[in-house]
């Protein structure tokens, strides 16, 4: 069985070296847990990642919790989860504390204004790609459009909008049960299935 100390140091290291967004954070975990430590098979890790992306919060965080849970139960998951986030939280707090002094230099202010403008563009790009991958038909377009309107034009509380979207999803976006292509069942099944 994997020791708690080993879990701590493994996930601390991943959290410290994990630059470059969710994809790289998950692939570092995969390389470590599957290739290096041989704790899990490729397929088992994929299952952990699946659960990690189904649950709220960052995909990499969820994946770390589920993987460690599999390896060492609740205490393992708690230790790994703590260790994974520790470096980032400490670094963000240190930077938050020192940023105000740095901001008095004109070139730092200039750099921040430059980055701030680029952040606007980056968020537009993220919105575009997220929208393109999620909006598949009229119904999903209506949900996304409705949420945008409620938030951007009417200033509805985002948590309320998320809850409403979840409910709308249950009512409108259930996957249509398609008939098996080999069976003789035709379109009748689709009607009957709903």
């Amino acid at each position, binding site marked *: 069985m994997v020791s708690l100390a080993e879990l701590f140091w493994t996930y601390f290291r991943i959290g*410290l070296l*994990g630059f470059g*967004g969710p994809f790289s954070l998950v692939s570092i975990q995969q390389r470590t847990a599957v290739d290096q430590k041989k704790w899990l098979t490729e397929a088992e890790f994929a*299952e952990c990642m699946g*659960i990690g992306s189904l*649950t709220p*919060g960052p995909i990499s*965080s*969820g994946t770390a919790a589920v993987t460690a*849970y*599999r390896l060492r139960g609740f205490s393992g998951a708690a230790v790994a*989860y703590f260790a994974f*986030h520790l470096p*980032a*939280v400490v*670094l*963000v*707090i240190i*930077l*938050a504390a020192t*940023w105000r002094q740095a901001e008095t230099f*004109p*070139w730092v*202010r*200039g*750099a*921040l*204004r*430059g*980055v*701030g*403008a*680029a*952040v*606007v*563009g*980056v*968020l537009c*790009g993220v*919105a575009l*790609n*997220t929208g393109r991958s*999620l909006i598949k038909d009229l119904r999903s377009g209506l*949900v*996304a459009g409705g*949420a*945008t309107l*409620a*938030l951007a034009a009417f*200033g509805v509380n*985002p*948590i309320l*909008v998320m*809850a409403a*979207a*979840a409910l709308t*999803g*249950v009512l409108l*976006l*259930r996957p249509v049960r398609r008939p098996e292509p080999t069976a003789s069942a035709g379109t009748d099944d689709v009607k009957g299935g709903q």
Partner: protein
Amino acid sequence: MLSTLLSLFVTTFGIGALTFGGGYAILPVLQYQYVSKLHLLTAQEFATGIVIGQMTPGPLTTMVAFVGYRIAHVPGGIVASVGILLPAFLAAVGVARVYHRFQDVSGVKAALRGISLAVVGLLVAAIIPLARDMVTTLFTLALAVIGFVSTGPWRKDPVWVLLASGIVGAFLLR
């Protein structure tokens, strides 16, 4: 102080429980709550927080520690981080426990789909106030367009365009 920390914890816990997909889903909600509604941070400060979140390792979500720090110093940073990360932990471990029974529930998948669609709206709503503060000249508009094209259609890692804009800004926007 204690009531500030308590409300910080309750709000971040709620946000953490209802946002799927991490950083980009959480940012707009944090911005609405702490910039637009409570005015505890300016849009400029919030953008700085995003940049710090990008610069540091680990999930972007940990930029919440910056928001928490600005509201209640080091305890605020810790409380906000714990608040936002705790629901994800409980949910992941809980689902891992009952995974085999939960796998094929179509209602759960549909609810998650609805939520991820709302994230698109959240992003758009977050961009508007940020753009109003950040994009004020033709030059900053050009930086925003470059940021959009490189991450949107070209799908490049945003770290590079943000870094380059910072360097350009240090020389030309001071």
